[in-house]
């Protein structure tokens, strides 16, 4: 049994979180939390519905950034980002989560805060250089997504802190990205491995999902592409570097060896797809 709360402001969320400590959990879409509670993996005494906090359901686009509120669902995010091809990598990642029904409930912030190594949106947020806006007793702070998740199920959030938004910087015009993932079936299964690639001007970013406790960047491949541009040869070399960077485990979704091969193939395919799209290498 738990008590259910409908806080109206971030300040109220923070004071409830501070008062109840470890026995409180934030409820966003509930697609992770309610399943974990049913399996007995979480037994909170207080659920704080973040969707009743006013303003968090908004997406704010300015000249410098697009700020996605913590109550925005993946479905709403997908629809909004359709008008922003430079964020295509995130839109593809959002679309690959679960099913239509889940995407109507699940939030982007929840996908991040749940901190699964296989969370689809995280590699995309990493290549976009997203920042996480956190509200706490001492005000707001911004943390780069790469530093936000510290391990499976673990984040930098301190007691009393809540994510209020995900902030996407505006990349220079002509930037393009691709997200590819492979799972045992296309819907309703977590990725066995995934790869996000992003080209902004002459710079490249590559991030891998589900092949380590947290998302990994393939910096050596990023430097190679910046130096030599995109070609069949550099895509193949980037794939080789990604295979070396991956530190996967063996589980029901695949063996470590399979995951390494898979993630290399995904990186190569994503780069070649980006090349065909006509992005500036």
């Amino acid at each position, binding site marked *: 049994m738990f008590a259910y709360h409908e806080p109206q402001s971030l300040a109220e969320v923070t004071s409830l979180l501070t008062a109840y400590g470890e026995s409180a959990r934030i409820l966003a879409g509930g*697609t992770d939390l309610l399943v974990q509670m049913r399996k007995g993996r979480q037994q909170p005494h207080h659920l704080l519905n973040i969707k009743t906090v006013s303003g968090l359901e908004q997406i704010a686009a300015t000249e410098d950034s697009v700020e996605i509120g913590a109550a925005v669902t993946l479905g709403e995010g997908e629809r909004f980002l359709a008008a922003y091809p430079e964020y295509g990598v995130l839109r593809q990642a959002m679309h690959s989560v679960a099913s239509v029904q889940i995407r109507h409930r699940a939030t982007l912030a929840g996908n991040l805060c749940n901190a699964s190594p296989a969370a689809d949106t995280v590699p995309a947020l990493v290549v976009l250089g997203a920042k996480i806006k956190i509200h706490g007793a001492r005000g707001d702070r911004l943390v780069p997504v790469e530093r936000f998740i510290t391990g499976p199920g673990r984040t930098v959030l301190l007691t009393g802190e809540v994510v209020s938004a995900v902030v996407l910087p505006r990349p220079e015009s002509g930037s393009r990205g691709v997200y590819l993932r492979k799972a045992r079936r296309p819907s*309703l299964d977590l990725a066995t491995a995934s790869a996000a690639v992003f080209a902004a001007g002459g710079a490249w970013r590559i991030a891998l999902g589900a092949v380590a406790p947290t998302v990994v960047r393939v910096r050596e491949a990023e430097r190679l592409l910046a130096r030599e541009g995109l070609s069949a040869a550099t895509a193949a070399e980037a794939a080789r570097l990604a295979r070396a960077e991956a530190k996967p485990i063996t589980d029901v979704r695949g063996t470590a060896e399979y995951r390494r091969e898979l993630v290399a193939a995904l990186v190569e395919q994503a780069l070649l797809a980006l090349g065909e799209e006509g992005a500036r290498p």
Partner: protein
Amino acid sequence: MKTVTLTVNNRPHTLTPSPERTLLDVLREDLGLTGAKRGCDAGECGACTVLLNGKPVNSCLVLAVELSGAAVVTIEGLGGPDGLDRLQQSFIDNFALQCGYCTPGMILMGKALLMQNPHPTEAEVKEFISGNLCRCTGYENIVKAIMAVAGGGEGNG
């Protein structure tokens, strides 16, 4: 305990559910609407699909206490005095069900898709219903039943 006022199939209801109960629990156990089925209770099968404010969701993953002001449509809300909704009839005409366990969810997914996209391609239908499992039909006739209505004008539900 919190009191929640919502509509289900256009009828107003006032409930005081204990916090752990889901929309699916309330529909089946309090309101006698057993069309939405409990398959997995974990978001994986789609048998519990209902429309919440016009959008399909897994009712097993929605807490009833969250539903102040919500409008819910279940399979019982389709059709009317004149008979079945066209999509329901199309499922019959196309032999799109065997045991029927997945059918309420499948039909509501078809409704939701046709509301946002009246002329989907077969690939779009398949992708849209990919969160709904069927143990019996092999899906072919379900896709056919939805496509038959998609090709032929407006539904009446």
